[in-house]
């Protein structure tokens, strides 16, 4: 089984995850809608999860896969708090555009 998995070299996973991660970073920096930004952050975390699972298989070491579970749990907790904050903001401003929120700059 391991032999079959390893027919794809690990570099491919590294490059693929890096591209996914870069798309996520780009989205966080460019998009205006807070929900889309949140989704881009999730994309970054999923790129990490994929790479961790790949490394874990190639190194035959279970720690990486355990870490994936921790990241999933934390991402869920973070999404819950983040969506809560978004709902609070939407109630006050009727918008989820992060560029409208610049009252703190003098």
């Amino acid at each position, binding site marked *: 089984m391991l032999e079959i998995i390893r027919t794809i070299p690990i570099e491919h996973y590294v490059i693929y995850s890096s591209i996914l991660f870069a798309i996520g970073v780009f989205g966080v920096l460019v998009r205006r809608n807070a929900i889309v930004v949140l989704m881009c952050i999730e994309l*970054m975390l999923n790129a990490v999860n994929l790479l961790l699972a790949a490394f874990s298989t190639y190194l035959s*070491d279970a720690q990486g896969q355990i870490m994936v579970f921790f990241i999933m749990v934390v991402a869920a907790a973070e999404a819950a708090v983040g969506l809560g904050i978004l709902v609070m903001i939407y109630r*006050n401003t009727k918008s989820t555009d992060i560029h409208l929120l610049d009252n703190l700059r003098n």
Partner: protein
Amino acid sequence: MTALLILFFTALVTLFAGLSKSKTALQPIVLTGCALAIGSLAFDLYDYQGSLQRWADLSNMLRFDSFSLSFGLVAVISSFLIIALSGYAFRDLNQSLGDNYGLILFSLCGALCMLSFTNIVMLFLGIEILSIPLYVLAGSRRSQPKGNEAALKYFLMGAFATGILLFGITLVYGNTASFDLASISRSIENGVSSPIMLHVGIALIMIGLSFKVSAAPFHFWAPDVYTGSPSLVTSFMATVVKTAGFAAFFRLFSTAFASVESTWSFPLAIIAALTMTLANTTALFQSNFKRLMAYSSVAHAGYLLLAILAIDNAGAGNALMFYLLTYSIATICAFGVFILVSGQKRDNSIEAFNGLGKTNPFLAAVVSVSLLSLAGIPPLAGFFGKYFLFTVVFEKYPWLVTLAVINSAISIYYYFKIIAAAYFTKAETELENEKVVVSTGVRWAAIIGLVLMIMLTIMPGSVYTLM
């Protein structure tokens, strides 16, 4: 570990006690929990061999050595002072008072995990346990648009930084096949398969942690978040979060990545130089007290990075701990006075301090001593903090220390602006002439803070060698 358990159970008790109608018992419960945690940390520090043996089972994940115990003391003492101030700052909260205290304590539990990790999984979990309650606390005044904005900015930046940190951790894991600090260090010394991937990983971890400790050029969120959050939460962010962040930064880089120091040392020196210079020059033009303190805390982050550059020096950890202790106590005392003054004069700018020397000599004295200590004026504790920190790194980076000294000279200007407002600016309006009513909690917190600052001034050596 005992302290961690005490704090966790106090937080649970506080959450349930918050459900009852009478809220008067909440603050004493939290203060008792913190005091017990301080006691147990101090006891463990006194007998830390015993403490190491008692919790030896955890040593794959958490290790309570003298480093984590002394930094834990700094974090818990800061939280104790902050909670002592909270009686006045949280006076308008009723329904959510228990939640607020509970979240502060949970956040503190995360800080203790960050101080004592020996496995990167615990570092990641500690950062998240610290941050997630703080996202909620930053927006705890739901009807205030500024608080909402601060909460969203803090959340997005925090989650983004976590993503970057995790990608770095993954790349390091792919090369070293372990999350354990000691085995990572061993694998790096034995040579890794792909050094480029390892170095990119270390760089990403450095960027992620720089976001968390607000070092330039990743500090842009700090002024906005510090200004928009409730003042008490700001003081928590500026002290406890910074303590935990720097201790984790130091622990990770001094144990796991010490053998490849030559690759990350110089970029970190550039980050430190940039942080202190940018923050100090921007702080000169601020008129809002919280924004000024935000830039001041970014500037102090720049000085604190010097300790991480000097990891091969045996005194670097002690210097970091001493500096964080003096910085935290001084910042909390300044914030305590500001919370009282701004609450009663409805003014967040430096002008709120006008005429304070006449109306409230005690408050004016507290704020002057703490700001002078932050500026590093010689007889005070802050001076010794800077002295210890600058000496450990001087041999390696003389130019950086010179820059740091110039920067602390610049910082005297903006700290003096506040002291000058308190003593030399005459109060003009009637509101400014009014005496500020000092609540008992704030008075005691200020007295404890002053006593600690004087102790640190009289016997810096004995605290420095505590670790």
